[in-house]
């Protein structure tokens, strides 16, 4: 309820709308003083989820909900996301790094009370690898597990020859085709490795069919700290405590409400009226206001992602590494971050994210404008003369893409004498142009699925589906493979240093800045630590009185 003087003032303001627009001090109805806070987190969650089947989803929106409903073998530490025991109380890795043996906890149950065993994992992996099921994230399993790719492609029909075995109900053995030092990080951070309740799914139709009704509220059986109680499409999704969760004692929240709000303005208004405790995103043009008036409600966390430009290395002038490097060096990243982005982003001088699981790239784009001019002249374009027409492509659905492109266009004109025109396309048209190579320079972004430097470096491997630059370097490919067989993490990271050095020298991409995650959060939300992947294990979260 609103206090009396406050309401009076608001009424006066309403009488003169113009006055009201200038803003009044009466910002939000204060909560009743004595009542204890309801332990329900109200979370702005961007968009309506595609589905809640962990084997049939892809986005961050879905991840945020599935994280509450499903548990994984290995969980994430709430501070830095390093793998900690989850459904598996312990595990062993064979000395050659090819066999992982997980020992499940004795008291694992599905949210309907049925026991959760190693066989549930095997059946889940069989489902996600079934060719006709066409799971989009299946590659996070079949890249690594023995026989999985053959099974997914339909050339191997016998699932017992895929590298999953359950010697007993509490032991799961995974055999890999090559060492995968970051496998535990994938399992901890990515839902694709979660077990799904295949027995329950079978009650709602063929197991290998997308979109059966098993994920509806009332039907969905999970394994996470919460269970689904309500799902009204485009309105809200509500989850409540799961009494069968193995670590139910640790869970502090009674429930979470997820609101699919795709408009940042709307989200901010709902936050102001107290309808939300936490927003998904934040309006860049309100940053200054919040920094000044409500710094305790604004959070800017580092986020494991990079904003960069792809260069199509098959077309002149960017088939020449000197031109690519010149364009990369002629950009004032500090100015971009300070004047264009203004959300605490960090300038990027290398392709890898500094501080990913302890890895900091030493390679760095250095030399500045003078070096850029020299390289361009050496390539035969002194002062930008003789350069063919160059087009920079970006997508329209993110507002700052345009501001970034315009600023960089001006820097290239000023520093290199290069005339670059800007082209904008609708999201999927832009993706299509980039994926089919119909571009010269294209804006790109990469958000990590798991916290390991491999995630940023693998995309530049020859033939990687996400390598839209079409750049290929045999030495780089060799190192990428060698890193997987490195005896320990230090040795592996040393190989990554060499790879980052190659990228800085060859510049198939122009790194621009590292993302930050900006959002509004009510000061009463506790246990919501900044994590690089913006994943927050909900069992540690609670609301303060």
């Amino acid at each position, binding site marked *: 309820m*609103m206090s009396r003087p406050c*309401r009076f003032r*608001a*009424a006066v*303001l*309403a009488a003169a*709308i113009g006055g*009201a*627009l200038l803003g*009044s001090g*009466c*910002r*939000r*109805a204060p909560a009743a003083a004595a009542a204890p806070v309801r332990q329900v987190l109200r979370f702005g969650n961007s968009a*309506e989820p*595609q*589905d809640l*089947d962990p084997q*049939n989803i*892809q986005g961050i929106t879905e991840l945020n909900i599935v994280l509450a409903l499903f548990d994984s073998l290995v969980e994430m530490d709430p501070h830095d996301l390093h793998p900690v025991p989850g459904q598996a109380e312990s595990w062993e890795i064979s000395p050659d790094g090819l066999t992982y043996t997980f020992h499940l906890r004795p008291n694992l149950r599905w949210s309907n009370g049925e026991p959760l065993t190693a066989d549930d994992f095997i059946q889940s992996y069989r489902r996600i690898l079934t*060719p*006709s*099921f*066409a799971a*989009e994230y299946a*590659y996070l399993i*079949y890249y690594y597990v023995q026989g999985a*790719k053959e099974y*997914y*492609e339909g050339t191997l029909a016998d699932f017992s020859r895929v590298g999953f075995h359950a010697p007993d109900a509490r032991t799961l053995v995974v055999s890999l085709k090559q060492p995968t030092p970051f496998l535990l990080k994938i399992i901890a951070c990515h839902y694709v490795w979660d077990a799904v309740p295949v027995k329950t799914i079978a009650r709602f139709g063929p197991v290998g069919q*997308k*979109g*059966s*009704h098993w994920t*509806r509220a009332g039907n969905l059986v999970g394994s996470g700290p919460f269970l689904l109680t309500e799902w*009204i*499409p*485009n*309105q809200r999704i509500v989850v409540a405590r799961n009494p069968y969760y193995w670590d139910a004692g640790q869970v502090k929240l009674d429930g979470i409400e997820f*609101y699919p*709000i*795709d*408009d940042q*303005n*709307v989200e901010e*208004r*709902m936050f*102001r*009226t107290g*309808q939300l405790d936490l927003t998904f995103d934040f309006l860049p043009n309100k940053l200054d206001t919040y920094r000044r008036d409500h710094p305790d409600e604004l959070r800017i966390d580092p986020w494991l992602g990079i904003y960069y430009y792809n260069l199509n290395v098959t077309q002149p002038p960017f088939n020449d590494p000197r031109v690519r490097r010149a364009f990369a060096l002629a950009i004032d990243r500090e100015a971009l971050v300070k004047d264009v982005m203004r959300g605490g982003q960090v300038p990027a001088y290398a392709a890898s994210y500094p501080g990913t699981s302890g890895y900091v790239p030493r390679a760095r784009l250095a030399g500045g404008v003078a070096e850029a001019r020299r390289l361009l002249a050496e390539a035969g374009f002194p002062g930008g003369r003789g350069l063919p027409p160059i087009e920079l492509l970006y997508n329209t659905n993110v507002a700052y893409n345009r501001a970034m492109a315009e600023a960089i266009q001006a820097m290239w004109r000023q520093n290199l004498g290069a005339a670059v025109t800007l082209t904008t396309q*609708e*999201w*999927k*048209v832009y*993706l*299509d142009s980039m*994926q089919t190579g119909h571009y010269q320079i294209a804006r790109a*972004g990469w958000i990590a699925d798991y916290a390991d430097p491999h995630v940023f470096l693998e995309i530049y491997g020859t033939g990687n*589906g*996400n390598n839209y630059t079409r750049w290929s370097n045999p030495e780089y490919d060799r190192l990428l493979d060698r890193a997987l067989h490195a005896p320990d993490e230090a040795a592996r990271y040393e190989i990554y240093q060499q790879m980052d050095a190659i990228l800085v020298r060859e510049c198939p991409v122009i790194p621009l800045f590292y993302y930050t995650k900006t959002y509004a959060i009510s000061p009463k939300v506790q246990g919501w630590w900044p994590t690089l992947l913006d994943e927050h294990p909900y069992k540690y979260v609670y609301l303060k009185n």
Partner: protein
Amino acid sequence: MLRYIGRRLLEAIPVMLVIITGTFFMQRFVPGGPFTAEKAVTPEVERNLEAYYHLNDPLWKQYVDYLWDLTPKRFHPLALTQGFDLKEAFGIDFRPSFKYPNRTVNEIIADKLPVSLELGLLSLGVALAIGLPLGILAAVKRNSWIDYICSSVAMTGICVPTFVLGPILVLVFAIHLGWFNASGWYGPIDRVLPSLTLGSVYAAYIARLTRGGFLEVLHQDYIRTARAKGASEARVIFRHALRGGLLPVVSFLGPAVAGILTGSFVIETIFQIPGLGREFVNSAFNRDYTLILGTVILYAGFIIALNLVVDVVQVWMNPKLKFE
């Protein structure tokens, strides 16, 4: 009259066919597809996805299969009252959505259409309740200060877009006064601000059209006759002028109601309303082929049906027109 309606309905079939065919092929020729995403789909996954959705069939076969799914195969209109499922009622199957694989397009329409209908009807009520009196008052008191005020209010309503008016209403009534939620569609109180916002724009149009229609009618001989016979001003307006004066409003209302009922993207976004308008627009961005077609077909059906209703009502209201 029945023959006229029957003929118009028959004419609607080729119109629908052209719309379906045009939409079906146009959406396929747009770059990008339902599975185009920032993280590239691996070739193995893409092959399996295309097989799952039969996108690897020849395009003509996909078209023919789709048309067959759309063809009505039964007639149980009463089934519509239980959840508005076109498949139950007529055997029309719009297929599952690409973006939301666990919902069929039939289900999405059945879920969202009632919301859009509710918002639409409320807004229409607001629009008529504000627009008609303003327009009549302006016409009757034409060229007086009352007329100027009414006309200015109407002009302002037309000029202020909903994406400005909506947030202003939220700012004043939700954020400062705390009377309403900023957005959402949970209780009856959440209907107030969206209906006011959407209704006010239509109110403005209705006011202007009503004023124009009335001014024309008030100059007619039969109105002069009525006045000469000593009819009171109220009787002249409501008994004699109303029917003729509302004709332009009625012809405007046909397409307007179709638009208002199938949802408004802007209003639904500002107030987070789970209506059909957002699905309509977002389906195109998502290249959700089946949802695009489903919403286009529904929208086209509404426009055809409401235009027919308008034509029938106009003949009834205007003695100068006849069915032919």
